């Protein structure tokens, strides 16, 4: 089928590492971890939204819902290269799905950065934040590449704001989230490198491993909430 052996970068998926391990297969498996973690965080945020009607939780839930859907599309497309799960798709349709997944991911990071930007605006730290806010350098490269550049800036901004928040509240959970986001950013950066050096197959695997470790670190503080709630308040 047409969708087989197609990756986000349009590269051939048949690359194999020295040990005979199919890199793309490992990538696909790791993508599903991303789906699970993102949807879990979105679920907890939605639960909070339902009970408190907080706009901050709405943005957080939306961010991770977009990220989860983006990871899911990538994972399903990747899985389709191994086992047929999608109906026969034209190359254009597959390319459309690839761009859509990148767009979802970027939208997710955007909502994360947007939440911080609003928080900063309301807390009157706007002038400082403008210095930190991402400066977009859109290239004439493919849409997916441009979107990954945007994603990187959004994550970077999220990391900076989360570290600033940690300096204020000194909560270990905030530091973990900052570390998780930083790893997501590092993964996106390695993804750039893998686009620049497509012959170095290991970069593609490294970027997804870094991203997944980042997502798992993000999941650690969320786990207690996902498992039915954590009451640290004064009640």
């Amino acid at each position: 089928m047409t969708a087989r052996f197609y990756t986000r970068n349009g590269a051939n998926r048949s690359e194999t590492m020295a040990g005979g391990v199919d890199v793309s297969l490992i990538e696909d498996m790791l993508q599903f971890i991303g789906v699970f973690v993102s949807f879990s965080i979105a679920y907890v945020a939605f639960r909070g939204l339902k009970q408190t009607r907080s706009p901050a939780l709405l943005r957080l839930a939306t961010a991770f819902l977009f990220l989860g859907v983006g990871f899911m599309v990538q994972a399903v497309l990747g899985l389709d290269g191994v086992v047929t799960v999608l109906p026969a798709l034209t190359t254009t349709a597959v390319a459309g799905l690839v761009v859509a997944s990148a767009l979802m991911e970027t939208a997710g990071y955007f909502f994360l950065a947007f939440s911080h930007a609003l928080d900063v605006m309301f807390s009157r730290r706007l002038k400082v934040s403008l210095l930190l806010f991402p400066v977009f350098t859109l290239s004439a490269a493919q849409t997916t590449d441009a979107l990954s550049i945007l994603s990187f800036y959004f994550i970077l901004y999220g990391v900076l704001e989360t570290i600033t928040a940690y300096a204020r509240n000194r909560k270990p959970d905030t530091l973990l989230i900052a570390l998780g986001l930083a790893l997501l950013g590092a993964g996106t950066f390695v993804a750039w490198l893998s686009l620049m050096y497509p012959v170095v197959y290991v970069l593609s695997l490294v970027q997804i491993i870094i991203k997944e470790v980042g997502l798992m670190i993000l999941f650690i503080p969320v786990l207690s909430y996902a498992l039915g709630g954590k009451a640290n308040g004064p009640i």
Partner: protein
Amino acid sequence: MAQYRTQARIIADVLTTARDMNTEGSGVGITTLLRKGNMSYSRMSKLLTELVGSGLLLELNKEKISRYKISDRGLQFLQAYYQFEDFAQSFGLRL
């Protein structure tokens, strides 16, 4: 610098005052809520009407004076608020 309070934070502050200052069980007067809530009378009146309307506060009328007591629903809201405030703070955000 004064800390910006979100709407959810303001509601939580009012409900917390109504819960903690209700030592005799007869509710809390608007003066106490104003003093602890740090907001104008008109804004507090509007907020109290909303909170009573949504069932988070109970209005007790004694000798033509309104006093306010936190409801079970209000207590549930406070519990959820503090739980998810912690969650949002983990992401460096405020509810």
